């Protein structure tokens, strides 16, 4: 079944169509949300939520842009919502609980070859910059697709990526790491 056929089936409420879309895009959605939120556990939750949203909102997808662009837009917005909520929770003084989970996840990240220093550096980048940077560097999306996904101007996407990179370089140098060691 092709992606278009799967989308059509999904529109008709057929779960087999959703399964095909899930198999095609699950890894990228998972990776993107993992990097955005810094936790594998949260990424798994996001994966579920996003594909439920896809099933509910597929009728709104008109096909003007690529399905992956539409999907990443939804994923990024969902992650940004979670990060915003976390900020509120932290502001209210409940920030200690997620930290325990983060420590476990950084251990898992090490097992998978993901540098905890980089994970920490990523955590400190502002959300929009992080989203642009991750879509570009990890998902290898074009600037145009990122702009469409995040509903930003092309210039804004480029400047967000540039700032994120500059921040990462600065952070890693402060940590005493040369970029080759990362």
């Amino acid at each position, binding site marked *: 079944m092709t992606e278009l056929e799967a989308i059509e089936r999904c529109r008709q409420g057929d*779960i087999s169509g*959703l*399964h095909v879309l*899930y198999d095609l895009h*699950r*890894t990228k959605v*998972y*990776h993107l949300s993992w*990097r955005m939120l810094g936790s*594998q556990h949260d990424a*798994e939750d996001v*994966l*579920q939520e996003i*594909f*439920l949203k896809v*099933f509910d909102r597929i009728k709104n997808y008109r096909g003007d842009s690529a399905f992956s662009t539409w999907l990443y837009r939804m994923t990024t917005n969902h992650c940004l919502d979670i990060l915003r909520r976390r900020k509120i929770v932290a502001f209210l003084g409940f920030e200690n609980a997620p930290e325990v989970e983060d420590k476990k996840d950084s251990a898992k990240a090490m097992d*998978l*070859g*993901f*540098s905890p220093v*980089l994970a920490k550096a990523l955590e400190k980048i502002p959300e929009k910059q992080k989203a642009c940077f*991750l879509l570009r*560097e*990890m*998902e*290898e999306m074009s600037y145009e697709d990122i702009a469409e996904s995040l509903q930003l101007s092309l210039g804004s996407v480029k400047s967000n990526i540039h700032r994120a*990179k500059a921040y*990462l*370089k600065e952070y890693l140098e402060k940590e005493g790491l*040369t*970029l*080759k060691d*990362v």
Partner: protein
Amino acid sequence: MDHKLKEINLTETFRKMGRITVDPQVFNRAWFKVEERIAARQRPLLGHLVWKPWGHPIRWAAAAVLLFAAYSGVLYNNLQEQDNLGEYVETISNPIDNLAKDTGIVHLSPLISEAPAPFRELLLSDENADNLANDDLSI
């Protein structure tokens, strides 16, 4: 030149990170939950049994009306019971006063007003008296 080389390495590192293989169990588990949640939504009976008044403002109003009706019903019932009890207590606590208030209608007990039963004489006569009782008397 050196700066350019560093930037390429950073990009490569991140792209490598984006290709990290994830345990397929994670994806299977997530898909199972997605399927389960969609199936749960499609069960019409359960969906109708669970009423969530917080889902819509009109439901809030409906819930408020129901609560008000139930509360006023209970209140009305309590007031009725209190009135009945008050009337009863008043009646039994001051019978003379109640007699004074009597409007002249006399309610006689059927024991007084009705004619005696026809078998009364039969009960008083010794005609059918027990023989054994007669023996006892003779002793």
